[in-house]
């Protein structure tokens, strides 16, 4: 299905289908006449879409382990390498279990009156989900297997909390990480994912819109309209408000970034911070990790289209272009300001670009994505150097400076770059199912929606995370002893060394 077909829109369908009321009547007549055959033939997932989504799920897993683990691991001192790798691996595994038990259900089901804010437990333990279950994509008449959607979304839930550990690396108890992440995904991640990504099925909206168009008199029309409103109302509140986030700028990056900053502030600085040398122990590992992140991110961004079509290719291209531009602009900015072009700089720039293009990947045009990439790196560089040094917070691996700031720039940039006048795809029907403005673009409206999503995420994740850190601190304590921290978490927390040479 081409993108143009999709842009035709549900709302357009509602109006356009007035002229085929007769067809609807015929269908209705058949339904009445032959109840046994009432159900429309179930949509069958396309094999290519299914294969693509499963490959993307594996790619996103590769972003976490080994990608993110090595990216972070290379940046800590050798005595804490195994601890970082273990934390990331353990978070991925923990969230995989939680997601299966209740996470998927909390994020992606209807919960009646609470639907705008959180999902229900209807699919806890994957109740009612089997190999024949399907979920809608963003296109009418296209479905993918629910298991493919379930596992794709699982990999997002895995990597997001893993991003946080970079902020308090080298100074946290392993048990505290585990307990915090368990609470954090449950209270922060699943609801925010639900706010932004839980939307009604396009086919349901189209069918309801068709019914409204087909309804003859006032009472029937009112009933049909109520039904349509009920369907469009069954969405996360940020999705319903028109905020655009293609692959997780708010849900993943701002969310993890602010949680990391709050953690760095509450847990405090590393012993010796500002006095001891704390250089990365292996930029080789960091480069390998950043490169794996880049490759895996195609699954993250292009996969977020949920099917394999032109928009998927657009998201793929944007991910390539913005990242290249951001890697280059960080390198150049650092070269100009600090005098030398660094490997860590170009790797950091690539990650900043990937973060920024995440919400924009399916909405901006390639040139818009390129500009976004060029802009994000100098801003992030400013935050990880000037801002961090001014305020003296020990965000060890710059989770806030790169993920939160890059995510905010991406989220706001998406609101600008979606403008067709700037090469964007415009406001499409599936991004504004509750409004009637598909095909239109208004700068102020869109920026308000984007800003609302950014602020909501900052507040919910920032305040919520602070409370959770305090709970964990009271329950089991956040920090290891100073001696343990000095000796390194590899030996003291895990009883092993990353390197025995």
């Amino acid at each position: 299905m081409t993108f143009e077909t999709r842009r035709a829109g549900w709302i357009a369908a509602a109006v356009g289908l007035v002229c085929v009321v007769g067809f609807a009547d015929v269908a209705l007549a058949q339904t009445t006449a032959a109840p046994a055959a009432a159900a429309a033939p179930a949509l069958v997932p396309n094999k290519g879409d299914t294969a693509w989504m499963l490959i993307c799920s594996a790619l996103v897993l590769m972003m976490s382990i080994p990608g993110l683990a090595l990216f972070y691991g290379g940046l800590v001192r050798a005595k804490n390498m195994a601890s970082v790798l273990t934390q990331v691996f353990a978070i991925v595994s923990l969230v995989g279990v939680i997601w299966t038990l209740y996470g998927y259900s909390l994020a992606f089901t209807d919960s009646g009156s609470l639907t705008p804010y959180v999902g229900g437990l209807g699919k806890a333990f994957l109740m009612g989900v089997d190999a024949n279950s399907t979920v809608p994509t963003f296109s009418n008449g296209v479905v993918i297997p629910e298991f493919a959607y379930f596992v794709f979304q699982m990999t997002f839930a895995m990597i997001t909390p893993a991003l946080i550990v970079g902020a308090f690396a080298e100074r946290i108890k392993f048990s505290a990480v585990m307990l915090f992440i368990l609470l954090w995904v449950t209270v922060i991640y699943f609801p925010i994912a639900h706010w932004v990504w839980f939307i009604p099925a396009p086919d349901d909206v189209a069918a309801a819109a068709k019914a409204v168009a087909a309804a003859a008199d006032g009472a029937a029309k009112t009933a049909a309209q109520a039904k349509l409103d009920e369907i469009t109302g069954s969405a996360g509140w940020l999705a319903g408000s028109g905020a655009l986030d293609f692959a997780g700028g708010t849900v993943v990056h701002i969310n993890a970034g602010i949680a990391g900053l709050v953690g760095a502030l509450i847990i405090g600085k590393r012993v010796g911070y500002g006095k001891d040398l704390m250089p990365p122990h292996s930029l080789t590992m960091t480069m390998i990790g950043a490169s794996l992140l880049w490759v895996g991110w195609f699954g993250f961004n292009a996969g977020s289209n949920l099917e394999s079509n032109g928009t998927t290719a657009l998201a793929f291209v944007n991910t390539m272009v913005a990242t290249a531009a951001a890697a280059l602009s960080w390198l150049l900015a650092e070269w100009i300001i600090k005098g030398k072009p660094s490997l860590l700089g170009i790797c950091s720039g690539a990650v900043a670009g990937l973060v920024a293009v995440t919400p924009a990947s399916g909405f901006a045009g390639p040139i818009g994505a390129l500009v976004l990439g060029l802009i994000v790196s100098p801003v992030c560089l400013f935050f990880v150097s000037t801002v961090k040094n001014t305020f003296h917070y020990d965000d060890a691996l710059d989770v806030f400076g790169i993920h939160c700031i890059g995510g905010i720039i991406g989220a706001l940039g998406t609101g600008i770059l979606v403008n067709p006048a700037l090469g964007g795809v415009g406001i499409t029907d599936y991004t504004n199912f509750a409004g009637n403005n598909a095909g239109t673009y208004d700068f102020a409206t869109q920026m308000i929606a984007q800003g609302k999503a950014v602020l909501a995420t900052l507040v919910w994740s920032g305040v919520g995370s602070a409370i959770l850190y305090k709970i964990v601190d009271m329950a089991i304590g956040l920090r290891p002893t100073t001696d343990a921290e000095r000796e390194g978490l590899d030996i003291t927390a895990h009883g092993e060394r990353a390197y025995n040479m």
Partner: protein
Amino acid sequence: MKIVMAIIKPFKLEEVRDALTALGIHGLTVTEVKGFGRQKGHTEIYRGAEYAVSFLPKVKIEVAVASELVDKAIGAIVGAAKTGQIGDGKIFVIALDHAVRIRTGEADAAAL
């Protein structure tokens, strides 16, 4: 007998070894060390963090020689390790009381 201890630039190690071997000195001990002298360190920048690295990597060699070979050994090391730049290193000569070859039990000059 003396111990000639030299702190040299790491990339000069092979040349120094060759020069000492040419004198008939067969055996020396090498340690990777860090230190500072008149040579300034350098600055490393990792994102926002700038580190002044004042301890620079050097190689320390220790070679036990008969007293009459000391001057030749010093000359060989200086000749091989000198670049003329600050940071070429230093040589220290220390008195050596006794030496034993573990395998044979030979002592002093015979053990060198």
